[in-house]
């Protein structure tokens, strides 16, 4: 049967067909839908882990027990999981272990565009890279086979244009994988004491050598000889881009991108006149191919930054007629960035922080949109959980002069992911920091996934829910406050009191995401602006609410509320000094 699947749906399907037993992930664009789709296969144990390190450890444990296991994450998630990754390479596995890394060239939804092919080489782990959804499914199955044959974790690398693109896939039947009843003790393989690790390292190097031979024989590493005047070595979605622009040229399409098929590369190079390597981001193939002494053109003509497309191939290689593109009809178009939703519980908190003019150490989530105008109230955002460490560093660097100057802001899911240990540091090392946990009861940014604080699992079952106050208290935080994020006066009072306190404190903003299915469907009546009372001061516009518009009029321009968008949250009515914003039902 043929169906249209996204790369992420195909990865989940491949795991299902391979008889995977355990699948685990932390949500992160563009990888999130892999586990969401996996959860639909009831034969598979699927979970949201608190972070990617835990996910990989759970998957590794399942594989050591003889199960087939998959851990999925976005590219920067592999940084979090890197600690278990490098040593799981030494121990190897019993059941197959596959790690999906979903990279994000162009940073559509990420803070950097690191090229995770480097991790495969660095950790000495084989990596497969599919070009479309069919290959995404097939390569996941192949990855399990390679993992068990070569006793190694295996990477499958996707990118945004694989994960979030759909193409036609032929489905197959699943083949069940039975997990042995008994656990096999092999401490010399799985206890990486130095003396054991020293024995494992040469085994890893021998494995890399054997995988190189395997790569040369692998049919998916495919030579397509057409016009020998020009040969292109490429992989992943870049193959499709290059093929689109140069269907008649010769190709070496790499499927196993680490280790490289050295003999096949040499054969291909000998068959074509001019050789290009067409790869997004780092010169990963290029440097290795040049080290073989092969003359190849790469980053001299193709960019190092951003995602590729067929035009990048056409312009870099040349020789084709460039399409002329129509000029704009209007030179300046107002931009349309994403925005916090009407009624978002974060809006009032950022408005208060802006008023206080404090330095806001920020974090990763919907609330990162607080960095955009008009709120423009975030001063750092580097990685998951970093806000709390940043606040601690700022406090210690400024010493006594730090009081009242900085606040850390972090979401509930991000706090579970990586915020607990830095908060422990603040309590332990006596940082006089204020940490605001924006608890909206979900992982909102990636599409509202469950986490250990929501009380539900990935499969929708009820479960334990972390008590944030008790947790912070147990870490050693004595000052724990809460507020309802639709009461501006309370927000500001609590923030000012805690920021002035020369001790650690945590403030929990208790307001569920307005899009949350458990937030309750009761929409408050919308607000409207009394055109007579509006003083045209534009203070309400500083909230950046999509429902509030500026309207030209006589005798004056005024604010206007689009009642179809207004969620009735009342924050704008609270900031209006003229009392001009009133509930429509009054």
């Amino acid at each position: 049967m043929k169906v249209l699947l996204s790369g992420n749906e195909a990865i989940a399907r491949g795991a299902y067909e391979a008889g995977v037993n355990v699948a685990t992930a932390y949500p992160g664009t563009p990888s999130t839908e892999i586990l969401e789709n996996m959860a639909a296969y009831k034969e598979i144990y699927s979970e949201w882990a608190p972070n990617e390190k835990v996910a990989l450890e759970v998957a590794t444990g399942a594989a050591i027990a003889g199960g087939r296991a998959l851990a999925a994450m976005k590219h920067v998630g592999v940084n979090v999981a890197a600690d278990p990754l490098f040593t799981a390479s030494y121990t190897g596995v019993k059941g197959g272990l596959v790690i999906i890394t979903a990279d994000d060239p162009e940073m559509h939804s990420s803070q950097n565009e690191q090229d995770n092919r480097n991790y495969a080489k660095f950790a000495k782990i084989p990596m497969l890279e599919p070009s479309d959804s069919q290959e995404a499914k097939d390569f996941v199955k192949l990855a399990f086979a390679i993992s068990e044959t070569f006793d190694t974790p295996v990477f499958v690398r996707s990118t945004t244009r694989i994960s979030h693109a759909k193409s036609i896939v032929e489905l197959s039947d699943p083949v069940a994988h039975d997990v042995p009843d008994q656990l096999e003790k092999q401490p010399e393989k799985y206890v990486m004491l130095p003396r054991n690790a020293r024995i494992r390292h040469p085994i890893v190097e021998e494995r890399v050598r054997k995988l190189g031979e395997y790569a040369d024989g692998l049919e998916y590493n495919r030579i397509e000889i057409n016009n020998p005047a020009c040969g292109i070595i490429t992989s992943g979605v870049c193959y499709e881009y290059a093929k689109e622009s140069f269907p008649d040229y010769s190709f070496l399409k790499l499927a196993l991108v680490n280790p490289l098929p050295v003999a096949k590369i040499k054969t291909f190079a000998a068959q074509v006149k001019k050789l290009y390597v067409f790869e997004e981001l780092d010169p990963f193939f290029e440097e290795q191919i040049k080290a073989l002494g092969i003359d190849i053109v790469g980053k001299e003509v193709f960019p190092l930054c951003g995602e590729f497309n067929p035009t990048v191939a056409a312009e870099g290689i040349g020789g084709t007629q460039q399409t002329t593109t129509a000029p704009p009809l209007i030179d300046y178009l107002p931009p349309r960035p994403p925005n916090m939703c009407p009624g978002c519980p974060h809006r009032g908190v950022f408005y208060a922080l802006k008023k206080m003019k404090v330095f806001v150490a920020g974090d990763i989530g919907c609330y990162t949109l607080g960095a955009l105008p008009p709120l423009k109230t975030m001063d750092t955002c580097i990685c998951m959980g970093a806000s709390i460490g940043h606040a601690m560093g700022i406090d210690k660097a400024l010493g006594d002069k730090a009081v009242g100057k900085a606040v850390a802001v972090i979401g509930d899911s991000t706090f579970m992911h990586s915020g607990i240990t830095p908060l422990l540091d603040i309590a332990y090392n006596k940082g006089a920091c204020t940490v605001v946990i924006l608890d909206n009861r979900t992982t909102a940014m990636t599409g509202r996934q469950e986490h250990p604080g929501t009380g539900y699992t990935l499969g929708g079952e009820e479960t334990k829910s972390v008590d944030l106050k008790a947790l912070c208290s147990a870490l050693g935080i004595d000052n724990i406050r809460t507020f309802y994020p639709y009461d501006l006066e309370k927000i500001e009072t609590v923030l000012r009191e805690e920021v002035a306190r020369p001790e650690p404190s945590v403030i929990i903003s208790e307001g569920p995401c307005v899009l949350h299915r458990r937030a309750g469907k009761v929409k408050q009546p919308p607000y409207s602006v009394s055109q007579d009372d509006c003083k045209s001061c534009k203070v309400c516009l500083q909230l950046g609410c999509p429902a509030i518009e500026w309207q030209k009029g006589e005798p004056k321009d005024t604010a206007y509320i689009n009642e179809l968008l207004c969620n009735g949250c009342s924050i704008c009515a609270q900031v209006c000094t003229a009392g001009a914003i009133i509930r429509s039902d009054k």
Partner: protein
Amino acid sequence: MSKVTNILMVGVGGQGVILASEIVAEVMMRSGFDVKKSEVHGMAQRGGSVNSHVRFGEKVYSPIIKKGEVDILFSFELLETMRYLDYLCDSPVLLVNNQKVLPPSVTLGADEYPDTIPDLLRARYPGFELINALDTAQQAGNAKALNIAFIGALSRQFDVDQKAWKDAISSMLPPKLVELNIKAFSLGREH
């Protein structure tokens, strides 16, 4: 090799652009074509610019369309149409939903929403057609069926049986919404 047809579907988060592109891709697959479709989702898309590339033909390689090669621009919003003109081929079809969604800088009073968009498009592109999909959806019973009403207009561009469209819509929407949306599709196709 027969030519690949390139449709670029654009609009604003929340308008139903992605679902519309899912339906078009599904119909073309069921009609025997190779199909690829690509979009970007992730950052809280509500209110942000959205685009989806749909390509079909005998064999499709790239999931994204090259600039200068879009055959049909299917735009849910006037201003969004203007962002993608460099993608259009020499004689494109432009189906544009006659609707304005104000971006933040306009609601804040910093920018003005250009008011000459339909005239500018009509003057340059003979294949331009302005469509009131929102009216059609309301006529069918619910403004939220805008995307399906608009697909009705798009469906006239292809030699594909109406039944294939209705089957795809029926299989891809929740059962309770099917009747309304089939009505919206039919009205959109007639208008």
